[in-house]
C-alpha cells in the first residue's frame, strides 16, 4: 500500500514563528495573547497575533505572507528549497478572511463617495491564496482555495490527498492560512461566543473563543515518491473523513452525528481501532456548544479514558488556518513523541465529565487524530500514523 507521506511541515502562529518555537511554547505553557494591534478596532478582546510578522500595507497580503512563511519551512524540510518546478505539484490551501471582500476602509470610501478603489480590487482579484502560492513556488499542477470556514485547512489537506491518490499530482502543498481582522472579531462577538479573557477549552468556566492568526502546511506525496527522493517519511496521513451535520448554520448537531461519522470513517480507512489511537487533537474552541458536543462524541467513540487536548489555548482560533495548523501539530507530536497540555484548562465541567491532557505527556501509540468542526456543519477528521 503506497501511503501518503508527510515529508515537510511548516507552521507559524502566535506561539512561534516556526514549528520549533511553537513546540517550545507548548512545553513552557507560554500564551501570547493581547488586545488587537494588527488592525484598528475599539474592541479589547484578547487575540493571538503573529507579532513577528510586520503589518502589511494591504489587506489580504498578510494571509499570503503567513502562508509563505509556513510553506518555506515545509518545503525546506522536504528538500524542495528551490521550489516545485517540473514536479507535478499541486497547491490546496484553506482560508476564510483572505477570500472575502471585507475591507472596511474600501467600503467606507464607496459608501461616502461612490468611488471604487480599484487598486484594492486588483490586489484582491490577483491575490487568490492557492493561485498566488502556486505561482510563487512554481507548482504547475492543480490548485484550489478552500473556503469552508473552520475546517478549511483540514479539508484542503483531504482534497490534496484525493488529488495524489487519483494521479492529478505527485506532490501537494496543503494546509491553511488566515490573518486576524476586525470583521470576524465583530461577527463572532455578535454571536456571543468570544471570550473577554484568555480562552479555556473544555474548562468548566470557559466563556468562548479567542481569535488568532497563522498558517500550518504539510508537504504530501506518495511514500514511494518520497523514498525515491531518498527521504524516509516519519509520519503518514492515513485517513480523511468529512461529514456534514445538515443541521444548523452556526451550531453543531447536539449529538455530534457528523463528527462521530467522520471519526469512524478515518478509523475504517486506516484499519485502526479506537484503542490504537494515542490522542485526539480536538477542535476545542472553548465555546460552550463545541466543547460539550465534541467531548460527548470523543467519549462515545474512544471511551472515558480518551486522551485529548486543544492547542487553541496557544494559538487562538485561527479559522481557515486551524485545520492546517492542528494537522501540523498532530503530525509533529507523533514525530517528537509527546503531546502538549491543553492550555487554559483548570476544572472539569460536569456536563463534559472528562478532562483534557493537563501536562506534557509521552505518546505510547502510533496513531493520532485531528478534528475540525466548521461553521455551517462540516466535520473533518484526519488520521495520522507514525512510521515504524
Amino acid at each position: 500500500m503506497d501511503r501518503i507521506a508527510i515529508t515537510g511541515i511548516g507552521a507559524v502562529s502566535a506561539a512561534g514563528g516556526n514549528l520549533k518555537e511553537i513546540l517550545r511554547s507548548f512545553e513552557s505553557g507560554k500564551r501570547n495573547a493581547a488586545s488587537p494591534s494588527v488592525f484598528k478596532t475599539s474592541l479589547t478582546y484578547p487575540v493571538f497575533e503573529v507579532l513577528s510578522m510586520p503589518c502589511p500595507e494591504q489587506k489580504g497580503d498578510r494571509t499570503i505572507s503567513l502562508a509563505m512563511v509556513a510553506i518555506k519551512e515545509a518545503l525546506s524540510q522536504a528538500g524542495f528549497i528551490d521550489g516545485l518546478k517540473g514536479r507535478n505539484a499541486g497547491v490546496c490551501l484553506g482560508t476564510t478572511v483572505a477570500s472575502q471582500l471585507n475591507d472596511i476602509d474600501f467600503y467606507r470610501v464607496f459608501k461616502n463617495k461612490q468611488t471604487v478603489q480599484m487598486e484594492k480590487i486588483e490586489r484582491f482579484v490577483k491575490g487568490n491564496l492557492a493561485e498566488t502560492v502556486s505561482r510563487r513556488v512554481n507548482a504547475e499542477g492543480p490548485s484550489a482555495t478552500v473556503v469552508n470556514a473552520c475546517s478549511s485547512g483540514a479539508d484542503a489537506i483531504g482534497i490534496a490527498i484525493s488529488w495524489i491518490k487519483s494521479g492529478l499530482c505527485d506532490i501537494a502543498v496543503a494546509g491553511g492560512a488566515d490573518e486576524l481582522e476586525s470583521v470576524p472579531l465583530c461577527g463572532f462577538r455578535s454571536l456571543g461566543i468570544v471570550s473577554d479573557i484568555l480562552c479555556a477549552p473544555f474548562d468548566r468556566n470557559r466563556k468562548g473563543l479567542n481569535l488568532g492568526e497563522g498558517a500550518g502546511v504539510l508537504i504530501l506525496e506518495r511514500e514511494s515518491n518520497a523514498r525515491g527522493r531518498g527521504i524516509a517519511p516519519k509520519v503518514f496521513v492515513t485517513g480523511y473523513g468529512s461529514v456534514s451535520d445538515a443541521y444548523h448554520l452556526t451550531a453543531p448537531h447536539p449529538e455530534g452525528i457528523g463528527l462521530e461519522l467522520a471519526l469512524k470513517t478515518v478509523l475504517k480507512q486506516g484499519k485502526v481501532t479506537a484503542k490504537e489511537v494515542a490522542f485526539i487533537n480536538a477542535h476545542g474552541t472553548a465555546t460552550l456548544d463545541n466543547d460539550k458536543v465534541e467531548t460527548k462524541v470523543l467519549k462515545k467513540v474512544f471511551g472515558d479514558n480518551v486522551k485529548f487536548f486543544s492547542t487553541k489555548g496557544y494559538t487562538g482560533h485561527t479559522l481557515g488556518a486551524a485545520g492546517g495548523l492542528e494537522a501540523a501539530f498532530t503530525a509533529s507530536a507523533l514525530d517528537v513523541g509527546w503531546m502538549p497540555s491543553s492550555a487554559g484548562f483548570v476544572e472539569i465541567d460536569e456536563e463534559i465529565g472528562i478532562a483534557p491532557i493537563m501536562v506534557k505527556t509521552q505518546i505510547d501509540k502510533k496513531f493520532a487524530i485531528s478534528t475540525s468542526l466548521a461553521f455551517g456543519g462540516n466535520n473533518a477528521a484526519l488520521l495520522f500514523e507514525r512510521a515504524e
Partner: protein
Amino acid sequence: MYISGIGMVSAFGRGIDNCVKVLREAIIPETYHVSQDVIAAGKLPRRMRRADKFSKMATLAAMDAVEDSKLDVKKKPGSLGIVLSTAFGPHVTTFKFLDDLVTYGEENVSPITFSHSVHNAAVSYITSAIENHGPALTIAGFVFAFHQALHVARSWLDEKRCENVLVGCVDERGEVSDAIISGKMGREKDFNIKPFDFSANASMYPSEGAVFFMVTDDASEKNYCKVDGVLHGAFAEDKKESDMYILDTDGLSGDETPYMDIKEKKAMISGYSPLFGSTPGLSAFHCAVAALTIKNQRVYVAPVQDNPHGLNLCSFGKNMDIDSVACIKYNCLRERGYIRLERSKKEG
C-alpha cells in the same frame, strides 16, 4: 465521470426546460438579475426564510440537479458529496455587514448577517435542504474555480469517497460588484455582449445565477453525457478535437484576443454569454449548454451572429450528430480552461 442531472437559476428563470426554451429561441434577457419572484416561488425549506439570495439561488439549483438526476439522497445520505465554487461568495451580504459596522459601530452588528456572509453558508443550506451527510465544501477562485471543483469531484469519485457529487457554481450581482466591474473595465456596462469580436477591450454586462451538476461514475443511458476532460492553467492544451467549441467570451477578462486561436478550428463555434450575462461562473453555464447539446443531439443558434473573423459559427439551431463539445476559457494571463464533454457510449 458522467453528468446525470442539471439544475440552473439565471436571468431566464429556473430549470432546464426554461434554459432549453431560451436556447431554442435565442432570447436575450431584458435584465441580468435573477428575479425575486423566481426565488420566492422556489419552495425552499422554511429554515431558509432568513437566508440571502446567494444561498437561495445555490439551493434551488442544487435541489433541481438532484431531482433531475432522480437520485434518492435519503437512501444513502453519506454517499453524495457537494462542491460549490464561487468567485466573490455572498458579497452582497458581506457588504451589508460592513454597512452595519460603518453605520452602527462594531458592537451593533447583526449575527444573522455575519453568519450568512461566510462563503460556505450556501453549502450548509444545501446539505440541510437535501438532508445529505456526505462531504461538502466551497472553493473560491475568480476564473477557474468551476474547473477546480470538477477536479475535486473527479478525485472523490476515483477514491470512492462518494458515489455521486453535486458540483456547481454560484455568483451574484450587487451595487458594489457592479461598480467594481465597471471600474475594472474602465467604462459603463455595455448591454451588447459581442462574443466573437475577440476585442482587446471586450464589452460585458454583469449577471448572476447558479448552476449545479450531479456527476457520477455510474454509466447509464439516462445520463446527459460524459465529462471527458477538465484542464486549466498555462499548459491546458486540447488533446482531442471536438465537434463543437463554446467560448467563454463574456467580456469579463477584458482582453479576449487569445480566443483568436479558435480561428484554426474547422469545427462549429458558438457562445451563449448574451443569454447568461457576464459572470465568473460562465464556464458552468456553458457546460450545461454543452450537456444539453449532446443529450438532445441539437446545436443551438448562437444568439449574437456578429462574426467579424469569419468563424464557422452556429448560425441556426438544428438537430445533428454531435459527439463532443469543448468549452474554452481564457483568463487575463492567457491561461486556459478547458472542459470537454462527450456523448456517453453504451458500456459492454
